[in-house]
């Protein structure tokens, strides 16, 4: 789950990271009032879950409450990479301006199985670009999960970045605060880009990004409250509530599969035979009628779908039971969209016979199923 900039920065601040004063506005009038309260010199920033807000015109400077209102007017309702801006953050400008921009983040290094601090004196830029073009400018330090960030580690990073020595103590406070925020909120990323040195010689986090490990949400009620569902496609929201893994894609062949690896593979093989998958969908184990019906409704809510490919491996749940579940689900969800069903595994032949009796298109192999689904979309045209 991703947080908005303002949510991330507030959490950083709770753990001791200095951030600018600011408030969220949902209207021009609110933006004007916040800017007036902050003394007029502000930055107005679109709050959407995507990068590249600046380039899209979603970040504007203002030097009076009126300018802030005008900026909010331009940004609110703006479309940034397909997302509509519903709120802006109005932040005071860094006191005395910005002397230097630094990148600082805590993330998980899967290969080393440790949290890792990543920093660079080349802040303010796209860090992936820095990593690719000038990898020597990126400093990485791993954190022992039982120890946390030690002072010498922050000093090492500060030294490598050439940070002025009088800021090293404050910098350690920021790295350890950012790590404690990461740990306390089960984050997969806490990122400050940029962390600036202000004209007054102080460190301040002017932008923030944070992603939370979805597996931890059960113990983070305050974070769950922060979820912004306005940006989530409706079908994905419904899938999440139903406990089904569903990701909408751009194609026209709806896919329903049990198991994530097999679901990805079904998409891959569909593509291999010239088709385009409309979604990733893992219905989990069992394929009971109710589950299949819910999944079908999700798939059919996408009007691009012209055919549906169902691929179920019956293991402990036998193929004949799966077939009965599919037929029962299709009685609940009436549709003209054509289907291809492939069952494999235990009692697959018995299951396929049941489906054939119900006059359903069936396939023995995944290749066969994908080819039939592709042919059905061509017939539909």
């Amino acid at each position, binding site marked *: 789950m991703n947080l908005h900039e303002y949510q991330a920065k507030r959490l950083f601040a709770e753990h001791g990271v200095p951030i600018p004063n600011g408030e969220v506005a949902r209207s021009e009038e609110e933006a004007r009032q916040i800017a007036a309260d902050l003394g007029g010199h502000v930055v107005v920033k679109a709050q959407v879950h995507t990068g590249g807000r600046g380039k899209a015109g979603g970040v504007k400077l203002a030097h009076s409450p009126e300018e802030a209102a005008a900026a909010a007017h331009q940004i609110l309702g703006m479309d940034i990479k397909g997302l509509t801006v519903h709120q802006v953050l109005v932040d005071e400008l860094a006191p005395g301006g910005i002397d230097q921009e630094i990148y600082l983040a805590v993330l*998980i290094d899967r290969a080393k199985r440790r949290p890792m601090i990543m920093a660079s004196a080349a802040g303010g830029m796209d860090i992936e670009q820095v990593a690719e073009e000038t990898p020597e400018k990126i400093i990485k330090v791993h954190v022992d999960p039982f120890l946390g960030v030690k002072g010498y580690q922050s000093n090492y990073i500060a030294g490598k970045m050439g940070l002025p020595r009088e800021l090293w103590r404050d910098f350690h406070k920021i790295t350890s605060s950012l790590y404690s925020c990461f740990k306390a909120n089960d984050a997969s990323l806490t990122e400050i880009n940029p962390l600036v040195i202000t004209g007054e010689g102080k460190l301040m986090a002017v932008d923030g990004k944070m992603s939370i490990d979805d597996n*931890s949400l059960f*113990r983070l009620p305050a974070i769950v409250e922060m979820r912004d569902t306005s940006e989530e496609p409706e079908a994905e929201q419904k899938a999440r509530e139903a406990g089904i*893994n569903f990701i909408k894609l751009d194609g026209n062949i709806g896919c329903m599969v049990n198991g994530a*690896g097999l679901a990805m*593979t079904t998409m891959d093989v569909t593509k*291999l035979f010239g088709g385009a998958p409309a979604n990733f969908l893992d219905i989990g184990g069992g394929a009971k009628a109710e589950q299949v019906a819910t999944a079908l409704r999700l798939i059919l809510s996408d009007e691009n779908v012209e055919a549906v490919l169902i691929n179920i491996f019956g293991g*402990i749940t036998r193929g004949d039971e799966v077939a009965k579940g599919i037929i029962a689900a299709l009685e609940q969800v009436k549709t003209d969209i054509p289907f291809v069903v492939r069952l494999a595994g*235990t009692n697959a032949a018995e299951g396929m016979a049941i489906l054939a009796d119900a006059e359903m298109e069936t396939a023995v*192999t995944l290749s066969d199923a994908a080819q039939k689904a592709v042919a059905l979309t061509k017939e539909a045209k």
Partner: protein
Amino acid sequence: MSILIDKNTRLVVSGITGREGSFHTAQMMEYGTNVVAGVTPGKGGQVFEADGQEVPVFDTIAEAVDETGANTSMIIVPARFAVDAIYEAADAGVDLIVCLTEYIPVMDMIGARAYLDAKGIRLLGPNCPGLLTPGQSKVGFIPGSIAMPGPVGVVSKSGTLTYEVIDALTRLGIGQTTCVGIGGDPINGTDFIDVLKLFEADPDTKHIVMIGEIGGNLEEQAAAFIKEHVSKPVTSFIAGRTAPPGRRMGHAGAIIEGKSGTAEGKIAALRDAGIPVADNPDDIARIVAERMGM
């Protein structure tokens, strides 16, 4: 021969009285797994019955190990209790911990893995289907009906995709030494290289099938390892060529992050190491048959 589990496996199941736990324990017992104990805190003294056998239930894994000599632990409890059970199994001194539970927080796993490494205890999973040695023992979800004893070692991040491959091998008359699901979480225990080492050392394993998916770099590491250290033929498949970047494809670890973790990168690394990678999973069993001269 086989790897990790066989007739001598003495299994203790954490979560034996739960809905999933009791169902799968019964399945394992029917298959012939020697389930010696169950654990559910607060239900010590009860008896679990399945397949005409009785299994004692204990409050703790330590008691189960003391009383029954269990050497392998399987964990099938809800995510919020699973990490505690991993630590408990490690402290009870089993040789192998198999954690099937999905949705364990990543930071919890980082701590648990560091703890297990310090103790030198092997974990399989979490979020994995477990493993199966045909005709001897199964620990986890893999359906016994699709496997048969034979010369191929199977290792995979996936569940049902692996069952497909095992099923296809069996239909061609090619049996398996052991089938191992390492799971699809970003931080787990046993990885591809660990299992490849075991298959390389197992005299009965003549061929290895490795099934990977997008995310992380375990497949790239495995490719480099195979090139240097594995003398047996390996046939591979990678799922997720059509996965969009930045989205988790069901498994918590199956995500393309920036430019890392793509199917293309993994397939290239494997092919560079001389490992055939099937474009279509329907071809895997056939490629294995051809390479085995069948």
